[in-house]
């Protein structure tokens, strides 16, 4: 059902950028591409902006095609909004913010980021629930001022609504009381399967991190080998120049081949980075995103438990009041009903998260097998291509060497 399609403008590289089928007016589609990175501003304030092109026939959207300009923080805003609204769903991961100044504007970094952002948006566009998000529509269609307003409203702690702040306060309260009462660990689910899943996710992050680290090193090694082949080639050419005759000729030919191969290696290093290392990195980020969802589920569970506790206590109070027929009874009853409604909400929220997570994990595993399969294929293909190139280059030199050595 999910097919990949290369767009013209640089989307769809190694990371499997999922795109739904192209314009076929009967079936609904939403296709996005993130392209044309451009540096804006100067000095410390400089940043990269991207062109986001949306093609869709969704009724809520403005038209068949829309182009907007977005920057990295806009994507972050979108991710945060989705994370808040769609608890339980594994929100697609974003590439990291770069902390190293000089790397921030290197061509390679910009391309990697563009690719990752493209994948990010497309995954959202293809997710049957997330694609219906209003925030997504704002992100894809709003003009710059609206976007900026929305973005600045949501920064920092002040983005929390009053009820959220209250919740945070209550969380802190309960944590304190837990400690005071000697309950050290917050309340957790005792579902063994879920335990297994949590452990799996945490361990997976470690393993993947290690693999990704080595993949990145492998990229570097390709570059280094390329570099030393270039220098070796140059040096041997110089040796050939001062040697002269057949032997000098042989040296020169070898040097030239060596330099040529150096270029192949640099190319392969880039291919490896984009088509193998980045997908692995993406995998790591996805797992980290899942950890966020796990935290949300824990929160929801805890809220549910606390409300259940509070209700019990309230019930006792209420019965006491009923017995003594106090005037406070009506108020207390009122509060009790409210609490019960809240508790139902909390339970519903929690159960939604559980249900969604169960669906998401299946989807996630399937998706990752596809993603990794492709990454492995690209890796093997690239290595085979490189090795064949190297073999061909050296082999083609042999007849020349033979004839030169005989002369």
């Amino acid at each position, binding site marked *: 059902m999910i*097919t*990949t*399609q290369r767009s013209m403008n640089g989307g769809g590289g190694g990371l499997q950028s999922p795109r739904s089928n192209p314009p076929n007016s009967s079936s609904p589609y939403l296709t996005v591409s993130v392209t044309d990175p451009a540096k804006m501003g100067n000095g410390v304030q400089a940043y990269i902006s991207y062109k986001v092109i949306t093609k869709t026939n969704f009724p809520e959207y403005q038209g068949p095609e829309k182009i907007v300009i977005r920057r990295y923080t806009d994507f972050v805003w979108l991710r945060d909004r989705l994370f808040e609204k769609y608890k339980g769903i594994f929100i697609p991961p974003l590439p990291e913010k770069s902390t190293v100044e000089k790397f921030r504007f290197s061509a390679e970094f910009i391309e990697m980021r563009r690719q990752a952002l493209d994948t990010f948006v497309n995954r959202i566009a293809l997710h049957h629930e997330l694609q219906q998000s209003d925030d997504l529509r704002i992100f894809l269609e709003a003009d710059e001022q609206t976007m900026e307003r929305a973005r600045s409203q949501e920064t920092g702690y002040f983005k929390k609504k009053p009820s959220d702040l209250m919740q945070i306060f209550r969380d802190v309260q309960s944590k304190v009381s837990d400690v005071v009462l000697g309950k050290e660990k917050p309340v957790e689910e005792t579902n063994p399967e879920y335990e*297994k*899943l949590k452990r*799996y996710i945490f*361990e997976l992050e470690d*393993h*993947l991190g*290690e*693999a990704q*680290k*080595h993949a990145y*090193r*492998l990229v570097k*090694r390709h570059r*280094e*080998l390329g570099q*030393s082949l270039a*220098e*070796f080639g*140059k*040096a*041997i050419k*110089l*040796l050939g120049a*001062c040697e002269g005759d*057949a*032997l000098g000729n*042989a*040296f020169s030919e*070898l040097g030239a081949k060596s330099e040529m191969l150096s270029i192949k290696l640099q190319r392969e290093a880039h291919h490896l980075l984009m088509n193998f290392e980045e997908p692995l990195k993406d995998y790591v980020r996805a797992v980290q995103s899942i950890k966020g969802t796990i935290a949300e589920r824990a929160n929801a569970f805890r809220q549910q438990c606390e409300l259940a506790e509070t209700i019990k206590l309230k019930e006792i109070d209420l019965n006491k009041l009923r017995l003594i027929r106090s005037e406070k009874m009506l108020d207390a009853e009122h509060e009790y009903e409210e609490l019960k409604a809240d508790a139902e909400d909390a339970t519903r929220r929690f159960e939604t998260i559980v249900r969604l997570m169960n669906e998401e*994990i*299946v989807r996630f*595993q*399937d998706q*990752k*097998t*596809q993603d*990794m*399969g*492709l990454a*492995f*294929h690209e890796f*093997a*293909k690239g*290595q*085979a291509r490189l*090795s*064949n190139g*190297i*073999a*061909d280059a*050296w*082999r083609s030199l*042999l*007849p020349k*060497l*033979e004839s030169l*050595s005989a002369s």
Partner: protein
Amino acid sequence: MMEFENNQGALEEEESQMESLILNDNTNNGGDPLSNGHPLSPPAEIPTSHDHTVNDPLSMTSSPNPNSSFNSFLEPPSYADAVFRSFDDGHNSNNNKIVSTSSASATSSSASSSGEYLKISVTDPQKSQDVVGNSLVPGGGSYVTYLIATWTNLPEFNGTEFSVRRRFKDVVTLSDRLSEAYRGYFIPLRPDKSVVESQVMQKHEFVENRRVALEKYLRKLAEHPVIKRSEELRVFLQVQGKLPLVKTTDVASRMLDGAVKLPKQLFGESVVSAAVDPSEVVQPAKGGRDLLRLFKELRQSVTNDWGGAKPLVVEEDKEFLDKRKKLQDFETELTNVSQQAESLVKAQQDIGETLGQLGLAFVKLTKFESEEAMFNSQKVRAADMKNVATSAVKASRLYRELNAQTVRHLDKLHEYLGVMLAVNNAYADRSNALLTVQTLLSELSNLNSRIEKLEAAASKIFGGDRSRVRKIEELKETMKVTEDAKSCAVKEYERIKENNKNELERLDKERHDDFFGMLKGFVVNQAGYAEKMASVWETVAKETSGYAKSS
């Protein structure tokens, strides 16, 4: 010598880890990649574009026993050596093997072609004690001796197999004697004394290094067409007991000689030693003796460089001068190439290591996914991953082998750096001999003018001037002696020039052969291993091609 062995231990450890991980893996992975056929079997189904016309050594022979057990891919493809040997015969150097084994051959290709051989091995270092405790150095006069065994059919030697025990000091003596006797030749340089290293390194490591170096040195001597027949070498290799190659001069007596004028210095009148004959002049002036001679020659060389008048004999051989310049350039570039070669080897080693580590990381992931699998997609992924992991480890191994061979081939570069040093020594011999000739010529002209002056002055006095006449007689006597010395020196100079010329021809030929051998070996090596790696990865690419159907 390029070092690459350092991390082999670590990598092997990683591989044994991997082995145990694979062996413990009991779950039934869907699509065990190994059962799809041994990855190193000839890739008949994979289209490759190369032609096989020239390249017999490169044709992919299949592995001897394609078995599908988990461990098959862990065996290094040992046929690699056989495949690449064709260009390498005669250039193998297995340093640590006793030479009598079939593969290692220390003889140069020229010797083997004429059926002569001179094989040397250096083994069995043993501690020994000075009988007479006259050593000034703390340590009680202990030293190490090595067993030097020779197999030969050269007629100069009486016998075909024999061995002696020698210490490093004996090697130094041998080297010094050869330098004196074979001026103008490209004599291989002996191993360093390594005073600092002997203090700093572990004793057994130092001794082992020295043993290897000694063996290399003696084998190089045995390859030299002239030196291998030298009496000095024969005595060193064959004569039992204390080495009878004695230093020709007693230092103390020479110091005294230095106070005497040059001609007398050459012909007796020295306090302790016997009459010295003209052939002494053919030895270059050395520090500690011949002080006066050194001084004169130094003055001569200054005159040559800064004086207005041209020296009486100059290096005229333009061909020689051109050749020397060319060799200097060659040496410079060779040094550069040798450095780059080391970097290349390091880079190859690094990439191999990282591939191995990547493979290991994926093995762990595979195991993890299989054990924790809750969905079938995980099992599929684990199988894919295992495929990639084992291929990465295989490729890592291939890189390691590639590198071992690369080191062997490119070591030729290092060797020739050593040869260049020997060449420089031979050229120094020539310069020194020329300087001696020039000095003597100056001396002669000096004497001549003094005689003329005296004769002119004496003729003015009627009846002769007794003392002056006696002086003139003396000077004429001295001139005769100096003339003889000069003739000797000229002969020696010519001799050295001839040696230089012959050696240069030999060097050119050998260099041609050696470097072509190196280039071919290097290229065949690179191509061969690249092919193997391509084959490994092509298999994986094929097996994962399903994921790419839409791209």
